[in-house]
């Protein structure tokens, strides 16, 4: 499969790069825990994604790039999660998120053939998916409406719960499991509050949404893509927001990547980027439902 992927990018003139797995900075994303490595010259963090250094490369004129590497997310273990896993991440200058989605579909179809035949991809917005499967419009529903929707499916969470917490819960337990298992489902236009490093723009009805998409195969989340945010001030603001959320829920503070922010200030070209879980792709190609079955040594035996 790696060979297929490398050929895919070679024919499209996308350069393979390698960036460091360790950095003095981490990711402030509230639900992602970076693994800390205490060293004589200070603590470094294992990357949860190669995003920051890859964007630094883009800012210095690398052109389209891709990377296949191990990333590390503490505390994520389950049938589709291993704290150490392999990500395929790539960036296309001048592309929109929708164009990149098309390339993701092509790559997945390529990588899975001949093991798995996929029906045509279902593309729908986050709002449509929630309306269809959870009976609510996430753009207009308030926290209580979300809690009620969750309650209808016998789901509950201990307080305090934010609207996004309900949406996440509904997504993983109600909406995603409803996706057809024989094809890709692409969810576009994530809520603006879940934009992470994506731009925000108005949807067809004028509601601000994130230029962010995710690709699922059945209920397994395969890829997460963005039309990347290039505004350094906005990115710094979002980082601060995330740090505040971390602090608020008793999370460990994480040093922000100033070198990355400096690259944004110097100028990140307009681009779209996507990260894909390669182990999950292999799992699907092998017809398995547990990641441990396709890892040489899963977390419990490493």
């Amino acid at each position, binding site marked *: 499969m790696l060979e297929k992927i490398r050929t895919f990018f070679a024919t499209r003139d996308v350069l393979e790069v390698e960036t460091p797995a360790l950095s003095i900075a981490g990711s402030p*994303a509230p*639900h*992602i825990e970076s693994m800390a490595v205490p060293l004589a010259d200070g603590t470094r963090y294992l990357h949860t994604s190669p995003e920051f250094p890859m964007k630094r490369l883009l800012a210095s004129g690398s052109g389209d790039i891709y990377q296949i590497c191990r990333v590390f997310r503490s*505390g*994520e*273990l*389950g*049938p589709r*999660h291993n704290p150490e896993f392999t990500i395929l991440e790539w960036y296309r200058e001048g592309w929109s998120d929708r164009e990149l989605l098309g390339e993701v579909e092509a790559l997945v179809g390529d990588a899975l053939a001949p093991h798995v035949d996929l029906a045509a991809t279902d593309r729908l917005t986050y709002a449509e998916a929630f309306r269809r499967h959870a009976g609510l419009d996430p753009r207009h529903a308030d926290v209580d409406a979300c809690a009620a929707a969750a309650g209808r499916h*016998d*789901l*509950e*969470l*201990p307080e305090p719960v934010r609207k*996004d*917490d309900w*949406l*996440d*819960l509904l*997504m*993983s*337990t109600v909406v*995603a499991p409803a996706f057809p298992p024989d094809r890709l489902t692409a969810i576009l236009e994530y809520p603006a509050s*879940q934009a*992470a490093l994506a731009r925000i723009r108005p949807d067809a009805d004028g509601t601000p949404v994130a230029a962010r998409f*995710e690709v699922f195969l059945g209920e397994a*989340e395969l890829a*997460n893509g963005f039309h990347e945010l290039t505004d350094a001030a906005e990115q710094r603001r979002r980082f601060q927001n995330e740090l505040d959320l971390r602090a608020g829920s008793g999370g460990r503070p994480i040093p922000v990547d100033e070198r990355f922010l400096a690259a944004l200030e110097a100028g990140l070209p307009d681009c779209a980027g996507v990260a894909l879980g390669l182990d999950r792709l292999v799992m699907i190609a092998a017809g398995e439902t547990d990641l441990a079955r396709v890892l040489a040594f899963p977390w419990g035996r490493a």
Partner: protein
Amino acid sequence: MATVNTSSFRPGLKIILDGDPCNILESEFMKPGKGQAVVRVKIRNLITGKVNEKTFRSGDSVEAADVFEKDMQYLYSDGSFWHFMDPDSYEQHAADAVAMAGAAPWIKEEDHCSVTLWNGNPLIVTPPNHVTLRVAETDPGVRGDTATGGTKPCTLETGAVVQVPLFIEQGEIIRVDTRTGDYIGRIR
């Protein structure tokens, strides 16, 4: 009060939920992309026997239930309680009729059972999967009587009533599956 984190959840782990000891049957970690991770568990309430689903935030801690199973030997019953002895400590435990519901029909003195203790008290007593018991009373089977499907009821030495093949006679020893109450075979 010991606590256990969701990252340690696995089938067979006993936790306290709403005051009742519960057994985790299944546990699944779910996390949407960069979102909140949750752990969904299917649990059996060990007091009511009901199976429920519950969602926890990943990383939350719950109270661990002081529940564990111990092999014990059945001594005798005084009508209200069934008395067992822990062969390692020689301690005796008394199980009430509720705890004995699945075991009372099948055990004789000196039989070994798995006793689930909660805070030191017998919660559920589980008999061995198969037991051998003597037929205390049954009508003689009439060959060719297939109107009842080729089986007849018999009362075992413990008082339990089981359907057996027509050729089984009073005084014979048979093997029974305690989980289903079915006749398995005859012991010669």
